[in-house]
């Protein structure tokens, strides 16, 4: 299958705008579950406002949140797909810039030293583009994630040691949720990366934070720890917006990798309640949009 790069550019533009407007159904379901179990009056009111906002965004065809985030494109290339990788990355970048200028979206991206905003949502190394491969025939999938800064500032790395064991992991996750308080716009998805190297463990935490609700860590030990931690963090009382309550997190997600005999790396990355993502899937039948 050959990939039309103009279609990729259009998809990169459409995905950014779509992600900012429509929350995936798993996140909407997550709100319903929290509303059923929340015992705090203020917390219920805050959750109610969040759910109302989702409806208003759809009714008024507006963005859910003012934060257009740091744009991230995750590309997965299946088997039998012919595409010029460099040109693909350029097409994604052009689509991202066009979404920003043509919609127009607030460009939230600046140079880290000069703080100059090019008003394209692009800059050095941004949009973040990850390219991976799988064995699905004749398929190229692009997932777009506008990653909000309030939750992204709730990112933590600890290079724990083996003697600290799993207790270090549990303690670190609990303390990160406490340190984040209301700043990460809870209820959050708490993404936890375990193992690997310092860079890999942070990437795993981001993948965990942006996984659909209801998905489970592929590793059974990781899956068991996800369940324990999901229950535990909602006993902390942080609540929606840090104003107290039971609904601190939709879930704790874990992604893990093998690590060194001397290492026990832990990373936490949070996703806010506006857990936005959109997906375009290219097949010989055309382009299909989803989540």
């Amino acid at each position: 299958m050959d990939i039309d790069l103009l279609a990729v550019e259009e998809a990169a533009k459409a995905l950014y705008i779509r992600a900012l407007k429509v929350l995936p159904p798993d996140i909407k379901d997550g709100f319903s579950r929290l509303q059923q179990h929340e015992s705090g009056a203020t917390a219920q009111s805050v959750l109610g406002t969040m759910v109302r906002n989702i409806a208003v965004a759809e009714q008024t065809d507006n963005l859910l949140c003012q934060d257009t985030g740091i744009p991230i494109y995750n590309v997965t290339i299946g088997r039998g797909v012919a595409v010029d990788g460099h040109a693909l990355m350029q097409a994604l970048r052009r689509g991202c810039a066009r979404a920003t200028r043509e919609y127009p979206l607030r460009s939230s991206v600046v140079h880290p030293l000069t703080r100059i905003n090019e008003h394209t949502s692009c800059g050095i190394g941004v949009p973040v583009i990850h390219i991976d491969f799988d064995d699905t025939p004749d398929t190229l999938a692009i997932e777009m994630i506008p990653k909000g800064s309030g939750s992204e500032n709730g990112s933590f790395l600890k290079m724990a040691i083996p003697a600290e064991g799993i207790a270090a992991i549990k303690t670190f996750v609990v303390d990160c949720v406490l340190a984040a308080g209301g700043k990460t716009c809870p209820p959050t998805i708490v993404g936890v990366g375990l193992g690997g190297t310092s860079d890999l463990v942070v990437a795993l935490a981001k993948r965990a934070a942006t996984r659909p609700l209801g998905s489970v860590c592929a590793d059974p030990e990781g899956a068991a720890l996800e369940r324990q931690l999901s229950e535990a963090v909602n006993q902390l009382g942080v609540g929606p917006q840090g104003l107290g309550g039971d609904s601190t997190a939709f879930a704790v997600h874990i992604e893990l990798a093998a690590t060194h005999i001397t290492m026990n790396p832990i990373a936490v990355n949070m996703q806010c309640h506006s857990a936005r993502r959109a997906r375009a899937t290219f097949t010989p039948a055309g382009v299909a949009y989803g989540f």
Partner: protein
Amino acid sequence: MAHHVLEMPVTEAQVRALRINDTVTLQRTLYGIRDATQIHMFDRDRRTRLDLHGHAVIHTAPNVRKVPASAEHPAGYAPVCIGTTTSDRMERFTRPLMEREGVRLIIGKGGLRDGSSEAFAALGGAYLAIVGGTAALETTWIEQIEDVDLDDLNPESLWRFRIRDFGPLLVAMDSHGGSLYRTVQADTAARRAQVLASLGVQA
């Protein structure tokens, strides 16, 4: 838990009447301010021609569309999506914002710290919590972008919005030392050991 409708600007007495857990709806005028705005105003001593005395500021950097200036869009901007951002990053600007510019109310999400509580108590101010991530809804409370200053910092300019029925907002920090965030933080800290024990960890 009273509800207050405030026609902006307000007096010190009106702000001192607010207590945590009260709710507030603002009318008429609201200013938008952000990290870069305050870094330039207070660290680089840039001055604004806009008069913030007695007013409310919201921690924001809006999505806007540039349009020809008109009666409907006097600043040459149409609102697209306007919400709020995490306030904590701007903690150290609360006091200068009140002392130099005369601001009375700060609106944001996630709360401010003890330094801001002290400034609210000393000078007569309060923090109103708005629900973060609900900008589509909040945009419906904004009628117009009336004015803009320091626009070289766009989108982190100093914005003046005309508002109608902006709220309800929750009084989360008042001028009497009350802070819902401090209360929640004390509660969560007290729960930490028990939560860790439930995970088989001795704190």
